[in-house]
């Protein structure tokens, strides 16, 4: 479904333009790390999720929101500013965007070591370069929390 060939001309051009606007990320870093069953996993989503009562995202927001691991689904809201993706799935089931229940199941089966106490949310329609300062700060926080596996999930 999310194949460029399935998009309308204007939608396809929008996404191709994003490729043209990408910064040069240089070389690709790669770290092997410990076995998956020992890793501590966090989710960093760009879906504009936040806990109800936290500040909603605005157009261009490049900051992030903290989602404590124990947040019930009924407390999650989505204030991503784009209207160009489906929200009905999230409205029905948070896990289609933010699979914390599935991650708990995998952890309970020993598939991963543990789950971080905190997860994080950005609003993915922010200008890509504006995200870097907060992304770097967040990387430091994740290290401090002993997280060694981060799921970067889009929407």
């Amino acid at each position, binding site marked *: *479904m*999310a*194949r*460029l060939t399935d998009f*309308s*001309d*204007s*939608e396809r051009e*929008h*996404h191709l333009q*994003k*490729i043209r606007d*990408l910064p040069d*990320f240089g070389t*690709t*870093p*790669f*770290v*092997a*790390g410990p*076995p*998956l069953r020992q*890793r501590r*996993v966090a989710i960093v989503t760009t879906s504009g999720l936040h806990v*109800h009562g936290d500040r*909603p995202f*605005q*157009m261009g927001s490049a900051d992030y929101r903290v989602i404590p691991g124990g947040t019930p*689904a*009924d407390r*999650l*809201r989505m*204030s991503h*500013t*784009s*209207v*160009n*993706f*489906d*929200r*009905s*799935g*999230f*409205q*029905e089931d948070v*896990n*289609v*965007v933010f*699979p914390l*229940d*599935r991650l708990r*199941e*995998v952890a309970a089966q020993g*598939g991963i070591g543990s789950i971080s106490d905190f997860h994080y949310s950005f609003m993915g329609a922010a200008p890509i370069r504006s995200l870097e300062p907060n992304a770097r700060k967040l990387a430091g926080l994740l290290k401090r929390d002993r997280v060694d*596996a981060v*799921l*970067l*999930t*889009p*929407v």
Partner: protein
Amino acid sequence: MSLIREQTAAIRPPRALWVPFMLGRPFGAPGEPDFQRRVLRALLSLFERPSGPVLEDFREDAPPTDAPTEAFACPVSFAAAGAKDGDLAEAMRDEIAQLAPWYDLAVRRRGRTTVGISGLSLEDAANHAAAFLDGAARPDAMPGIPAGVALKRACDDLKAYYYEAAAAQPGNLSPRAIDNWFWRETAAAKVFLAIREICQHSKDESLRPLGLLGLVPRYVTDGSMTAQSGARPT
């Protein structure tokens, strides 16, 4: 995780799983825990790769959501198709009232709602949006918040209400069916389109972006919204 493969290939991250799902559903489908778990396990398995970069494709399509058209009867039609500008706000309020039992059912079934970004009641959100139609003085329902931000949040709440109500109706409507219904048949969509045009010419810098983005999807403004067969909410 990647939803648009070409972008991820250009970024060259150390590990990525491309999934062939619609935008907005990175783990495939709601209410499909087994499928979601397969996607998650495929994603997690990339951590065990000894070298990279890795860009792998998830080979399964999401479980289908399209309902058979004969499964849904349409006993009532909204009056939006014939509504003129002066009637639009009232037509939208009427729709909201008609959808209330379905929205309530959706909240009961799901135990949650995604309405609530604006902090306004739905009636106030509707009034806030409708106030832009006649070019009158802008309502200050959210003091200290720029007009464009407040309007966007009110409209997002309205749309979430319509979509949650529609999904609760019989017929197990697909996302595309709900999109087509909302944008083709509701007064709320006509209100959004009218507001979008007003924002394009606004002197308020916080409103002008809503004239381009943030209210109406590109597939509506570029005329590419696909035709959808029979099933639709009421």
